[in-house]
């Protein structure tokens, strides 16, 4: 009996690799495919941006970035993001809070509506605002009569950006808040805390990492948004051109090096976002995992 069992036991380690699934060849092929994809679609274009940007030397690069129109575009992008992101943080937290902590009618509808900006083409998102606030739009005559400019001006850019980037914060927070439940808040309330104290000392600290991710993604998109912004901007140089729009204009005017120089700034932002995210995951990985677990 034990003699008969021995050969089987000896054979087991040999067979284990196939029991685990794919053979070595398949594994190498899958890994190679993934790497190749990343190389072709992510790293190569990214490298191209920086190579093209540096193509005409440091002086040309500096000139392309410090040129007044480019400076105006950078300032405008920062301004739009600086307004749209905080706005979306506040509204996103409010929406996530409402959805995660309360039961009410139309909750599912609200969840679908939060996703709407993701499912609608950004161009349409921009057109909606032109339709509403443009000269021929519903509110156009009234706005003109009161000398308020929305479309082809800063308010339009902010509106479009807010709309497109709205889901990021809420989307990140809702599942996390839902999984946390309401016991912590109830405990704080029974201990006599005011609702504001509960929010700032219990709810917000509990979801700080999700919130941070959401803000990071929201900001990256707010600065990089093209479609919706292109429609409402009117592309007035030095006035309503954000960085992505400025890049497109430069490129269309055959100023490749200048276009890539400005583009390298946006790409740099993406890299910083990525690095920050990775750093946080590495540094606070345990804490993040713990805060998500329960």
């Amino acid at each position, binding site marked *: 009996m034990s003699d008969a069992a021995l050969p089987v036991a000896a054979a087991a380690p040999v067979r284990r690799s196939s029991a685990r699934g794919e053979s070595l060849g398949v594994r190498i092929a899958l890994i190679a495919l993934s790497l190749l994809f990343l190389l072709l679609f992510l790293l190569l274009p990214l490298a191209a941006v920086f190579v093209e940007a540096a193509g005409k030397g440091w002086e040309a690069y500096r000139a392309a970035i410090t040129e007044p129109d480019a400076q105006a575009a950078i300032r405008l992008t920062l301004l739009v993001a600086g307004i749209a992101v905080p706005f979306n943080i506040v509204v996103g937290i409010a929406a996530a809070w409402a959805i995660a902590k309360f039961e009410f009618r139309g909750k599912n509808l609200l969840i679908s509506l939060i996703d709407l900006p993701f499912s609608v083409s950004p161009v349409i998102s921009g057109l909606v605002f032109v339709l509403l606030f443009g000269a021929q739009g519903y509110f156009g005559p009234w706005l003109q009569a009161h000398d308020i400019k929305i479309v082809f001006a800063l308010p339009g850019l902010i509106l479009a950006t807010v709309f497109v980037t709205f889901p990021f914060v809420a989307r990140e927070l809702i599942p996390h808040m839902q999984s946390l439940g309401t016991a912590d808040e109830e*405990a704080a309330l029974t201990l006599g805390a005011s609702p504001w*104290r509960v929010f700032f*000392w219990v709810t917000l600290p509990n979801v700080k990492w999700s919130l941070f991710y959401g803000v990071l993604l929201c900001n990256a998109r707010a600065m990089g948004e093209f479609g919706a912004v292109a429609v409402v901007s009117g592309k007035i140089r030095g006035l309503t051109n954000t960085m992505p729009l400025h890049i497109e204009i430069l490129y269309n005017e055959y100023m490749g090096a200048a276009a890539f120089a400005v583009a390298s700034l946006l790409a740099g932002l993406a890299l910083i976002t990525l690095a920050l995210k990775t750093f946080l995951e590495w540094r606070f990985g345990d804490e993040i995992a713990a805060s998500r677990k329960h």
Partner: protein
Amino acid sequence: MSVAVTIETIEKRFDNFPALRGVSLDIQPGELVALLGPSGSGKTTLLRLIAGLEQADRGRVLFGETDTQELSLRDRRIGFVFQHYALFKTMNVGDNIGFGLRSRPRQERPSESEINKRISELLELVQLPGLEKRYPSQLSGGQRQRVALARALAIEPRVLLLDEPFGALDAKVRKDLRAWLRELHGRTGHTTVFVTHDQEEALELADRVAILNDGRIEQVGSADDVYDHPATPFVCEFLGEANKLPVKVVGGQAFFGDRPVLGGIQQNQGGPASLYVRPQHLRIVDETPLALPGTVEHLRRNGPLRRAEIAVEGLKRRLDVDLASQVAPAIGERVRLRITHANLFAAA
């Protein structure tokens, strides 16, 4: 102040599900009361209503003479210990315990040094001295439970409410904590209400046990009361084990089929009824006028007890019988059973 908490004909519905249907209960100052019942019986809802975490559809909860409706959650001053403790994981143990005191309006708030002193006193009380700087994730289940209790006690609550206080702990820790909680209650004397589905826990810990079923209180009483004198068939079956025997009561005697099995029943009871007999109240006897014949089908050992399963003709379920003497019957042996004590309920 004669009564600490008065619950008056509380009704509560969730959507279309009635969670509580007319529950009334008085809780005396310093009393330790258990709300015992199967899941879905409404016990947790009742606890949350006392806490003010739920609103009743009808009825009132009074603290002393005060209608709690007039009190904000802060002014209710209740210490609530949640089933999974709900410790604030982003705060250390000390900050968790101090949270309630630091939440008070500035003019009522103790100084920071007083708060810190209170925190270390409470940690002393729950036998976790010096753990202020730990985080909840660094504690064991039993330690978390005690921190949650210290946090609730920090606000000097009028009433301490515990939701399944030992539900999330393993058996050994549970036993230790139970004895410790009983002792702590003896020392601090807080009016305490706790929810449990574990009858052993309720009977051992509580001064009085309120047994809930289907949104109603079936019986309130001391452990001896509810165990020895169950008021309803539900209580009888829920607490401990009981064999159920369908009988007919005629002339002060209970008949199983046409065989008299129990005498001395009050004359005003009559007609079809259910007889509930605990395994320890059935005795194997030689000869007696009131006896139930059966066959031994199975013998089991349950710790110190030996138990026989006895098949009785005309009864689908076998009767569980605790064997008092060392001499066990053999399997297949025909025996006679005498009922030494039973609870009789008229058939519904």
